[in-house]
């Protein structure tokens, strides 16, 4: 079973040379730490920066320089700043190659819910609805089950949706799955996790074809 860093590490392998990548809050933010340094990648944050670097050295943080998670950041050579309209032009216009975001629920047809629990929690969708409605390459990073042990990979989402039929790939603490017309296709198992354990943690249709390899991290 993977921890959050493990999930981030596995997702980092999906990041290819030349990609512009938007990382959501939470586990996705960790992905930047694991991207191979022999490839060229630029991170976009929808609040208006392209070419994000690591967090600043203690004492050098700048209140005018944050990411979409409101964390202080730095920029790398080749970075640029822009306004929110141009930022979402990048996203809506499909100039961002890969979007990685968290989710509360994903359904077997690729719907995603991650912004609201009616009557309980409403933080808002932020840029997530724009991202999932536009991106062609969306990877969801999340725990396979919630704190109560219930599956987050469902037949149908129960929470208000963020987007419909948009998720292509899911990386959880247990598995890597692809969303295909028939359901969740199991691609890889986390180290030491059995197909049966994944099956038990998956409410939606799980498709298992042949031997399922363990992740190569």
């Amino acid at each position, binding site marked *: 079973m993977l921890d959050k860093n493990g999930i981030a590490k596995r997702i980092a392998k999906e990041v290819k040379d030349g990609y512009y990548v938007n990382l959501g809050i939470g586990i996705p933010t960790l992905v930047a730490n694991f991207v191979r340094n022999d490839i060229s990648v630029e991170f976009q*944050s*929808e*609040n*208006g*920066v392209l070419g994000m670097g*690591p*967090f*600043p*050295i*203690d*004492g*050098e*943080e*700048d*209140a*005018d*320089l*944050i*990411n*979409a*998670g*409101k*964390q*202080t*950041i730095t920029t790398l050579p080749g970075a640029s*700043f*822009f*306004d*929110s*309209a141009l*930022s*979402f032009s990048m*996203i*809506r216009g499909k100039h961002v190659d890969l979007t990685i975001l968290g989710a509360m629920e994903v359904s077997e047809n690729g*719907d995603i819910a991650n*912004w*609201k629990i009616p*009557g309980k929690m*409403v*933080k*808002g*969708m*932020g*840029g*997530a*609805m*724009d991202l999932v*409605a*536009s991106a062609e390459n969306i990877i969801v990073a999340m725990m396979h089950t919630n704190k109560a042990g219930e599956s987050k990979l469902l037949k149908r989402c129960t929470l*208000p*949706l*963020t*987007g*419909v*039929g948009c998720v292509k790939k899911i990386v959880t603490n247990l598995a890597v799955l692809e969303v295909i017309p028939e359901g969740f296709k199991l691609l890889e198992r986390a180290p030491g996790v059995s197909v049966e354990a994944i099956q038990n943690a998956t409410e939606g249709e799980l498709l298992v074809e042949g031997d399922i390899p363990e992740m190569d991290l």
Partner: protein
Amino acid sequence: MIHKGVKDAQEALLGVKDGMTFMLGGFGLCGIPENAISELVRLGISNLTCISNNAGVDDFGLGLLLQKHQIKKMISSYVGENDEFERQMLSGELEVELTPQGTLAEKCRAAQAGFPAIYTPAGYGTEVAEGKETREFNGKMYVLEYAYEADFAFVKAWKGDEAGNLIFKGTARNFNPCMCGAAKITVAEVEELVPAGQLDPNEIHIPGIFVQRIFQGKHYEKRIEQRTVRPRN
């Protein structure tokens, strides 16, 4: 040169009234119009509708107006990190219209640019699109979203000149440029106000035509919401 300079926030906010709709720039606490917000608190006007990506934190930014119950309705994309906000929203004291971030930016830009409405894919199939017109273009579904109508836009820039030209800094730019000229009156506060002619015309982010009043703000706190650092080696 058309002179837009005013003395201070008090003069800049002349004409704000109960029940008005305001746009406020900023993302989180980054690039927010601190002086305009302070003046709104001082004036104590209420029943306001505020269009702003976020709602500040409990004791800073728009949180200050929420504390005083001056806001009737918030139009935002993300309102986490604010307990008083969540309390007022869940209790029904505060009306909240959550809007996807890119849609929010573009509804401001539509008002700035004279477009009545836009078609965006964001929110299609979700409760955000409920009751809204949708339409297919090239096999993809879009939602029709209307331009905002606001009385005042309050924006914060880094530098500005007496002609109203603005230059923003870093990610404090965010929604500020999109809101300039998107309301009947745009009020810009800047950290440094210079005479016209001192800013390079090539480096101006927002031309003065979109700004009606400009003033040099005071006592910028520029609070950091999530200070995140790595250790000095």
